[in-house]
């Protein structure tokens, strides 16, 4: 196992370097003086100009500039946002928990609903139920989630008034951001339970929207995975032994059908991060997705550059964990 972990880390290194080259080039590919782009074009004093020029080593050869950039990044220095004047890294850290909370809940819905739906569709194969569920999954899979979010707002927030339109918690509650996860912080706040309910209400619509595509993908994969396994010889043996249908499906087939499902769940982390960019924009959710979109609109280049790099690092890290999980679940992979 140690060898595998080391191997995965080694594989990730070229990707990390590639991402850093991309982020480094970004600011130099945009037409215009990179220093002015990084400082925002208005009100640049001579000292500030020279200061950042030296910090980035812009008077040095490009290769040297890249190593300046890398060593700054390694120290957690990704520059300063033009808009907020705060370090990019601090901005990222303060917003990251909001995205994790949203993504985690979306993944939770999609797994606890997607897997049972897929199992039911497989068991009831070629019945009305199966066709109904799988058509639904196909629609869910094709869903433009930015529109889906607006439709849910239209029905549940505007029409029925059940859920709030945007934000993480009602402004009436004063919650201290200790962990950054609103569900936990709200419980610790003086209002406790009431604040928790408010933050949960704010989370429901965005997480359902974000979980829609993963849920559909998981349901489809569970169904086809289970159907594949149900054809196997050992299932026929189990039937011949006279085991009940329930035992066969749950104990013998389901576990083996889960391997491709785990693969899909792993792939869905990327989808969730992409979806988060759209979902956060619709629901004014203060996470990294909305932050990065806003930075493009306001041409806040230090944030784009640093944000892209930090997000890519997270994705690479998550993919590494998912890879290791496969090996843990499927021992056959350990030999290769």
């Amino acid at each position, binding site marked *: 196992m140690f060898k595998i972990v080391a191997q995965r880390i080694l594989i990730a290194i070229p990707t990390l370097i590639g991402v850093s080259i991309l982020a480094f080039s970004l600011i130099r590919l945009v037409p215009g003086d990179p220093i002015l782009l990084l400082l925002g074009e208005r009100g640049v004093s001579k000292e500030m100009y020279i200061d950042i020029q030296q910090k980035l080593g812009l008077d040095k050869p490009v290769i040297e500039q890249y190593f300046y950039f890398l060593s700054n990044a390694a120290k957690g220095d990704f520059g300063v946002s033009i808009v907020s004047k705060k370090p990019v890294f601090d901005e990222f850290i303060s917003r990251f928990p909001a995205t994790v909370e949203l993504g985690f809940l979306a993944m939770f819905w999609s797994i606890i609903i997607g897997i049972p739906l897929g199992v039911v569709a497989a068991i009831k194969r070629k019945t009305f139920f199966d066709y109904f569920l799988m058509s639904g999954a196909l629609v869910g899979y094709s869903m*433009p989630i930015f529109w889906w979010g607006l439709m849910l707002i239209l029905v549940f927030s505007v029409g029925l008034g059940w859920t709030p339109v945007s934000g993480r918690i009602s402004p009436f509650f004063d919650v201290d951001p200790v962990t950054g996860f609103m569900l936990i912080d709200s419980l610790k706040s003086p209002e406790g339970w009431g604040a928790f309910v408010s933050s949960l209400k704010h989370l429901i619509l965005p997480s359902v929207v974000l979980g829609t595509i993963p849920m559909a993908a998981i349901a489809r994969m569970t169904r086809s995975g289970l159907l594949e396994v149900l054809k196997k010889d050992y299932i026929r043996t189990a039937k011949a032994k006279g085991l009940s249908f329930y035992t066969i499906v749950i104990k013998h087939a389901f576990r083996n059908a889960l391997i491709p499902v785990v693969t899909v769940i792993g792939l869905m982390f990327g989808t969730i991060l992409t979806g988060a960019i759209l979902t956060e924009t619709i629901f004014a959710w203060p996470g990294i997705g909305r932050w990065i979109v806003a930075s493009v609109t306001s041409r806040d280049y230090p944030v784009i550059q640093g944000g892209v790099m930090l997000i890519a690092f997270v994705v690479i890290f998550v993919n590494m964990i998912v890879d290791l999980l496969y090996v843990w679940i499927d021992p056959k992979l350990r030999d290769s």
Partner: protein
Amino acid sequence: MTQYKEFLKKLKRNTGAKISLALLGVLCFFALFAPFIAPFDPTQIFDGQLKLPPFWLDGGEFKFLLGTDDLGRDQLSRLIYGARVSLGVGALVVILALSVGLVLGVISGYAGGWVDSLIMRIVDVLMSMPSILLAIVIVSILGPSLINGVIAVSVMALPAFIRIVRASVMAEKHALYVVAGQNFGASHLRQVFINILPNVAAPIIVQATLGFSDGILNIAALGFLGLGAQAPTSEWGTMLADARSYIETAPWLVTMPGVCILIAVLTFNILGDGLRDILDPKLR
């Protein structure tokens, strides 16, 4: 020819594929003949007729079947012209991503060695970014416009094409018929384009179909974020973004562009599923 006949026979039995082809026909019809079908010019502004509801709601008029938007433009005409943009973008994205993906995938899979490693590392980098993020990076360099959006969305689609072509070529590279071709002195180009590719066309065709739906969805997403098509282009995602602020007063303006996006994306996803069943039963 018999292969083709067999394909048609299987197509006739596949309900999903038939439905999606019919839908595709309708979409293409709207896109091709938009100027003849649309009742008005999509940019024509009718003064004083802002945010009219569709004809079946109170205050709606038959003149504007699906109502008018916040500037007084006919919603139906804009939606019809939107089909043009979306299908056009889908086609462009598939052509761009497929041609570049084919070249890089073939080189990677056929040559192997360090060339393969280099191309695959680049693919890894592209895949380590959430796809919309990659598009955002490209748009932030090039500036927001429909064409730059198309470039960005094509780059997003590229990794999938490269990987699928590479995997197919690698799988066939050592097949007997390819080795035989080599012994008869077939050139590399002949080996790749005449011997190998026709045999691995099925998964690539399926991927191209799915590439259409991704392209349509992603250009709409960029439009929605304000990073794709710019006003006054009648693009569905951009229309949705414009209508967002009127969600309470004019919900129909938000509903319809989304329905159009969903139908277009769904059409290509069903078609892709159907083609996969027909062309390559192994993949199921």
